[in-house]
């Protein structure tokens, strides 16, 4: 295999890995938008929450897996609590108040993080049995943990696909994304669906933060960039569409990776240019429903 082809493929691998991790966060966001009609600015903060939870527990238990096993139920529990306390009153409210409340939530979570963990940058150790590198080409090796990350995200993506197609919750989600009132009048407990969807969305974002921590570091404001890029994914993919979130994330991951190498002058802007292009051609997103807002 020629040198440049080999390195090209490795960069594709990098882009896909970035996209798959992004999918975890964006899918949660699009679900919450699409099913519940709630705009949640604090979604990035949930990502940060997951990372800090795992940082704290890894320090306690010394092991990433135990930390994740403990943190996921905590995150789900927090999701259920937040939904009941803060988000349920928002469903019928104007988007403006959702923006305001979730913005306030971002501030609160940031400051709590600052009070509990300080403002330093922290690292989380890669679990020992994954802490090796696979030789790829010449001197370049690929960290095994990153391959694991991609595989893990694919498994989650598969699980979500199964959930949406084959479970009752999935049916409710599919129905609820097109017609909320109809779902209610069919006797499905919409409140339970909402609670489940919100907890799922939050847990996905937090989980992404947890597994990404060893490669992404844990630092203040880490949720903000993720949030905005997730917005771009949702806009490109279409609100409420998991398929859209999946392909949108991969597209963004690849665009960002190759943008860094081949278009450094655009640095960081590539994904927004992409978004502008999609808006021009298909305002509802690639897989979105026209008129769904």
């Amino acid at each position, binding site marked *: 295999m020629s040198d440049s082809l080999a390195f090209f493929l490795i960069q594709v691998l990098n882009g896909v890995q970035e996209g798959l991790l992004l999918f975890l966060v964006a899918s949660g966001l699009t679900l919450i938008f699409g099913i519940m009609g709630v705009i949640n600015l604090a979604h990035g903060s949930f990502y940060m929450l997951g990372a800090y939870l795992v940082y704290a527990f890894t320090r306690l238990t010394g092991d990433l897996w135990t930390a994740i096993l403990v943190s996921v139920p905590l995150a789900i529990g927090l999701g259920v609590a937040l939904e009941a306390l803060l988000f349920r009153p928002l469903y019928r409210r*104007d988007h*403006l108040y959702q*923006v305001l409340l979730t913005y*306030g939530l971002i501030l609160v979570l940031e400051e*709590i993080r600052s*009070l509990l963990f300080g403002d330093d940058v922290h690292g989380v150790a890669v679990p020992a049995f994954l802490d090796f590198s696979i030789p790829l080409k010449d001197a370049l090796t690929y960290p095994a943990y990153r391959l694991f990350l991609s595989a893990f995200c694919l498994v989650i993506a598969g699980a979500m696909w199964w959930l949406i197609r084959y479970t009752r919750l999935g049916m409710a989600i599919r129905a609820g994304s097109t017609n909320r009132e109809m779902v209610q009048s069919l006797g499905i407990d919409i409140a339970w669906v909402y609670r489940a969807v919100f907890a799922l969305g939050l847990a996905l974002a937090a989980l992404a933060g947890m597994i990404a921590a060893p490669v992404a570091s844990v630092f203040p404001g880490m949720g903000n960039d993720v949030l905005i890029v997730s917005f771009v994914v949702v806009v490109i993919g279409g609100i409420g569409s998991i398929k859209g979130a999946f392909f949108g994330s991969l597209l963004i991951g690849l665009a960002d990776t190759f943008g860094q190498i081949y278009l450094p002058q655009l640095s960081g*802007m590539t994904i*927004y240019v992409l978004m502008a292009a999609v*808006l021009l051609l298909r305002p509802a997103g690639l897989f979105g429903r026209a008129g769904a*807002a």
Partner: protein
Amino acid sequence: MRAMRERAMLLAAFVLLALFPLLAGTFYLQLFAKIMIMAIFAMSLDLLVGYTGLVSFGHAAFFGIGAYALFLLSPQYAAASLYLSLPAASAASAVAAFVIGLLVLRTTGVSFIMVTLAFAQMLFYYVIGSKALGGSDGVYIYVKPSPALFGWTPVSLDRPASFYYLVLAALAASYLVLRFVTRSLFGHALLGIRSNESRMRALGFATYGYKLAAFVIAGAVAGLAGYLDAAQFGFVSPDLFGWRLSGEVLMMVILGGMGTLYGSVLGAFALVLLQDGLTDITRHWLLPLGLFIIVAVLLLPQGIGGLMRRTEKAHG
């Protein structure tokens, strides 16, 4: 009668602000000038949020453009002309608002909020990556713009009091312009769009055009505010495009009272004075602010405006 009382109050407030430099030292003159700049910015957003029902979470984009316009128009060690650079900065923001508006107004609701944020971020990254614009550390404007006319310089904007009056004049002018716009037929159409856009369309209004016009006007005024901000301390940085600034100004509009321009002014005063006062007490002042916002949204089913209406009924 009511109109007269309202006008009297506003006039009194204006006179007090005009007399302020007689009492205050440099630090407070600069602080109040900063507040008034944010007030102009907030009023421009009120036109979108309070009157047209467009929740833009990327309004900082136009603020930033106005600020960087001053940088681009200022020669490195000499002063730019106030009479040329100020309108140019506002115009630049207006043009940007037109282009961005064309795209973002194709969406509504949640999508609109997201894409306005995303466009502001795009500009943020553009500026960070641009060597000509100084990148992530920001860039300095070494000489303030000069109101020199044909060689005669009436005042130097380097004196805090002079700059303060410039900002006060800009605040009064923006207020009057926006007030005129909102009380015109155009303004009433905007209110109609806010309450029910499809009905307006059914009545034959080209709502897209109206929204775009409002977007452009709001952008122009925000550009004016950004220009003044850059002129005050001579420093511009990509943070001027940031979502935090967009969020802050949105808070000022909502907490101050949407749909009454002077409400945004009050919101600006309250928020900046609060920040200035609290940062000396605790670094974590955003925590009580965030909690307050959350509680306010939850407990006031009709929003802050509802609180006002209820207080009125009680004292009516």
